[in-house]
């Protein structure tokens, strides 16, 4: 029935292998990009076919065993895929957005050195991500989990000859290792805990079935889920492991859009959704997740207020939006979190691609005018809406969506999260307050970005101004498609109080319902409260936009005054709360010092000492013993006779 499921990750893998092996020889950009994009599109078609099959099916959980991996005692591990509503949503997002971004990359990466390398990595990433979301047991998922980490590293360091890019790649990889350590701890502890109860499995369906064997709210399940959550904070850039994501913007922009906005960074959210049964049983973990998510949403938004690099603003915005998703997971609004994951994939991918289009255009213009200005600095932009109308319109739509203005996709998902964080049995009004404040700031900094980039007077160098083109159609088509979905993507999840039936929630219900019922997680409150909260969040967003309009359109000199007035606060926020410096001081420098000590103290003195000491002793012995070789025949003959006498004497007597 669902036996062609394996084709979904298979197609990108083929593309990756093909481009990796032959891309260098082919050289033709159309062939390389066409193969990569075409295979992604095939994968998308298979995914869509499976989704429709699943929509019409009464049984919602399907497993496909591809091959046996290992059998140890009574533990059986398979290469298996799992299709249920949750993974169906994820494969649609990954293949859909993935295909568009592959198409975009054809135009964006035009003329870059290592064009084939880029598509090879991008396909490999799609493969790993699909293994992650389709994996039917925790180890297959872990393979995908590590695979996306690797591809993220490779793609951030794509311009490896640039020092900052390779450093950023290292940072992303090392920070992710910390998270992966948590993931492994959780995995092994869970395996051990279930084996204690006689269930030898890592299969998600079986884990969900036998989760009740563990003590609900007990220490064990709290440790397991907290370890998993540590893994999620690494991959999904949450406090305390979020510092790598803004630096990851060193990679090409399509990479930022695909990996660091739409797909890989949402892996943590997906993982919590996949194991929602376990998480729901650990209220302490859920609370931790909600608080971490809320704080991340808030702090990342404050940093986003003061950045000038267009991609960095979007990066902090991504961290902030991921915080929202974790907030949703933490208060038990699993389907709302996944809903936001999906809408976020649309509008954030569109925003990143739009920023890429702007950067592409400016880069082109500076190149033509032989200037070396920074094409990513928003202070060099302004008034671009006439130069790049398609980019501008799609960008604006996505910005409105992320700001939570009614009837755009972000509104529905964000509002559902805010409502749950207030009204859920696991929620609290403080969590709502964090979320709402972050929403206001999001609206402000996103419109600040739009106003600085597309409105106002042109601040681009006069020599380059006339050379700014609208991007080619491979870039604008993905923008239009994503912008369209950013506009309407929310309509599959219209909440009940607005007269909808929330199809999205109903579709995902088979995955989340049981855990929510068993642990009494639900949102409660009067309709009036819900309407009021909705009105407040819309009002906050509008205020944010208004302030941005006042500061960046009406009185463009106001931001400077504002910065002068609150210089200390601005400095702290501009420098990202000095988190990087703090981590340097707390972790990086001690590590370096320990390394230096081990090098100078242990390696040079002890290890080298032992090795050289052995050599020295042997050399000394040799120097002494060589004088026994006189070269005179009778000496050797004498030694032989004495030897024979001794041996014979020994044998006889």
């Amino acid at each position, binding site marked *: 029935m669902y036996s062609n499921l394996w084709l979904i990750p298979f197609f990108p893998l083929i593309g990756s292998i093909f481009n990796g092996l032959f891309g260098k020889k082919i050289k033709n950009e159309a062939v390389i990009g066409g193969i990569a994009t075409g295979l992604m599109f095939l994968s998308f078609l298979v995914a869509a076919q499976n989704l429709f099959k699943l929509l019409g099916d009464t049984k919602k959980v399907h497993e496909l065993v591809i091959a046996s991996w290992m059998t140890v005692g009574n533990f059986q591990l398979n290469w298996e895929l799992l299709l249920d509503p949750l993974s169906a949503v994820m494969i649609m997002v990954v293949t859909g957005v993935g295909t568009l971004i592959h198409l975009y990359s054809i135009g964006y990466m035009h003329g870059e050195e290592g064009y084939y390398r880029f598509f090879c990595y991008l396909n490999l990433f799609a493969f790993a991500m699909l293994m992650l979301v389709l994996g039917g047991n925790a180890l297959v998922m872990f393979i995908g989990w590590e695979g996306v980490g690797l591809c993220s590293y490779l793609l951030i360091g794509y311009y490896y000859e640039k020092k900052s890019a390779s450093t950023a790649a290292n940072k992303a990889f090392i920070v992710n290792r910390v998270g992966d350590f948590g993931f492994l701890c959780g995995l092994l502890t869970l395996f051990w805990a279930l084996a204690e109860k006689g269930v030898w499995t890592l299969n998600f369906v079986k884990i969900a079935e036998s989760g009740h064997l563990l003590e609900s709210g007990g220490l064990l399940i709290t440790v397991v889920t907290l370890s998993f959550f540590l893994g999620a904070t690494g991959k999904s850039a949450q406090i305390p492991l979020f510092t790598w994501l803004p630096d990851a913007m060193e990679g090409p922009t399509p990479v930022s859009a695909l990996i660091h906005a739409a797909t890989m960074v949402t892996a943590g959210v997906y993982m919590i959704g996949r194991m929602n049964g376990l998480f729901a049983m650990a209220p302490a973990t859920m609370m931790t997740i909600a608080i971490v998510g809320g704080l991340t949403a808030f702090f990342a938004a404050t940093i986003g207020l003061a950045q000038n690099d267009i991609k960095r603003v979007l990066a902090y915005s991504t961290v902030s939006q991921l915080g929202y998703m974790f907030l949703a997971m933490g208060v038990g609004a699993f389907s709302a979190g996944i809903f936001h994951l999906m809408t976020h994939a649309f509008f954030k991918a569109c925003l990143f691609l739009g920023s890429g289009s702007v950067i592409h255009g400016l880069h082109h213009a500076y190149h033509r005018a032989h200037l070396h200005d920074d094409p990513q600095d928003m202070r060099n932009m302004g008034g671009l809406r006439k130069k790049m109308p398609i980019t501008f319109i799609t960008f604006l739509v996505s910005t409105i969506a992320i700001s939570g203005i009614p009837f755009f996709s972000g509104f529905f998902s964000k509002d559902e999260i805010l409502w749950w964080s207030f009204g859920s049995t696991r929620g609290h009004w403080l969590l709502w307050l964090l979320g709402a404040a972050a929403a206001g700031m999001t609206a402000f900094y996103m419109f600040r970005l739009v106003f600085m980039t597309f409105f106002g007077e042109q601040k681009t160098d006069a020599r380059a101004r006339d050379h700014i083109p609208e991007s080619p159609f491979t870039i604008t088509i993905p923008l239009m498609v994503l912008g369209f979905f950013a506009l309407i993507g929310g309509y599959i999840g219209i909440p009940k109080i607005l007269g909808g039936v929330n199809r999205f929630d109903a579709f995902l219900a088979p995955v989340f319902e049981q855990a929510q019922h068993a642990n009494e997680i639900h949102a409660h409150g009067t309709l009036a409260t819900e309407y009021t909260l909705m009105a407040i969040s819309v009002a906050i967003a509008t205020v944010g936009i208004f302030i941005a309009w006042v500061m960046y359109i009406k009185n463009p000199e106001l931001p400077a005054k504002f910065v002068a007035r609150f210089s200390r606060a601005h400095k702290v926020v501009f420098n990202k709360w000095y988190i990087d410096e703090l981590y340097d001081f707390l972790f990086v420098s001690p590590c370096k010092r320990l390394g230096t000590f081990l090098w100078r103290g242990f390696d040079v003195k002890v290890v080298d000492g032992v090795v050289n000491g052995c050599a020295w002793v042997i050399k000394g012995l040799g120097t002494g013993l*060589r*004088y026994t*070789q*006189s*070269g*005179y*025949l*009778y000496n050797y*003959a*004498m030694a032989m*006779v004495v030897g024979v006498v001794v041996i014979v004497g020994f044998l006889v007597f």
Partner: protein
Amino acid sequence: MITVNHYLLLSAILFAIGTFGVLTRKNAIVIFMCIEVMLNSVNLTFIALSRHVGNMDGQIFVFFVMTVAAAEAAVGLALMIAFFRNKDSIDTDDFNMLKW
């Protein structure tokens, strides 16, 4: 009456003389001759014991020893000629280069 012990004693004396010669003499040909003495003392032992035990194996072995000794003599003399061409001497003290 000459018993097997007499033969063995003579053989031991010959072997000791040969060994002493190998250790003390410098002239390669004399050393070579001493080795021959040692070999022949062993031959004597073989034959004496063979006769004493009444088994012919020992005597057969002596033929082998003589054959090998002949071959050895050929190789040894060739070596000495080669030595002499090198150093105008066959004194073993002049051939002490195999050392530190």
